[in-house]
């Protein structure tokens, strides 16, 4: 049982990393830094709903760390960690409350991911004026969250144990 879990977690983390890479390959041409679909969140949500809270945190943080190590730098690590932590901090209670669907959880996670990144940018660049991007990132987070949520709930439904 234990080795099966290790294998599953490794697989999902690898999947999350590939999704980060795919996302980096297709840049969205919007003039606001930080707008993206958040494909890796599909893997995190799968882990959250199928495996549990601890497992989802592990997948998310290991993925962020490894992706920054492979393709990014210390700056991108700071942005990603803030996004990932805030997003998990909101998604976990929403999932546990049982009142929201996968899409709701994913939308909240997507928006909080963006908020986290903007907060780090405000701190690093020491510019409060960046808060001006919050509405744009909020809307983009909602759209991205809906896409990710729909895909995630389809995956969760189809991988259900019979």
């Amino acid at each position, binding site marked *: 049982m234990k080795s099966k879990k290790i294998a599953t977690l490794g697989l999902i983390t690898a999947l999350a990393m590939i999704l980060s890479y795919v996302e980096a390959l297709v*840049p969205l*041409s919007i*003039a*606001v*830094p930080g707008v993206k679909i958040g494909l890796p969140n599909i893997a995190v949500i799968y882990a959250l709903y199928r495996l549990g809270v601890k497992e989802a945190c592990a997948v998310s943080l290991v993925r962020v760390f490894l992706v920054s190590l492979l393709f990014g730098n210390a*700056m991108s690590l700071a942005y990603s960690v803030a996004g990932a932590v805030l997003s998990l901090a909101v998604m976990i209670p929403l999932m546990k409350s049982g*009142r*929201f*669907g996968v*899409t*709701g959880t994913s*939308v*909240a996670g997507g*928006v909080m991911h963006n908020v986290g990144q903007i907060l780090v*940018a405000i701190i*690093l*660049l*020491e*510019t409060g*004026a*960046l*808060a*001006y991007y*919050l*509405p*744009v990132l*909020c*809307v983009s*987070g*909602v759209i991205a*969250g*809906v896409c990710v*949520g729909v895909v995630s*709930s389809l995956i969760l439904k189809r991988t259900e144990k019979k």
Partner: protein
Amino acid sequence: MDKKKLKNDILLIAALLVVAAAVWLAVTLTRTDGAYARVEADGEIVMTLPLDKDADVVIGEGERTNRLIIKDGAAYVTDASCPDHLCVRQGRASKSGETIVCLPNKFVVTIIGGEDGEIDMVLR
């Protein structure tokens, strides 16, 4: 899917959009024409340029440079060393509080108003 969950999801999304709209409105309505473009690199103010005077400056050194143009009361970046050129795509900034940001170069241009001007240095 559970109907109640779906309803809650939609409520959540609507609430987030309302918050976004409110913040956007607050930011837009309180905005006036700016008087100066404040240029920051690595978190330090490099220069402050008046918007009513045309200028063409290159900020930064070595491989981290951004070319800032000031023309007709608006500031914009035409050239940058960063890979994504998001700062170029952000276009013109002229209203107080608007910014042009280049994350890779840690370069920020903020338009500041004449009335609330917290100006450290004016370069003429």
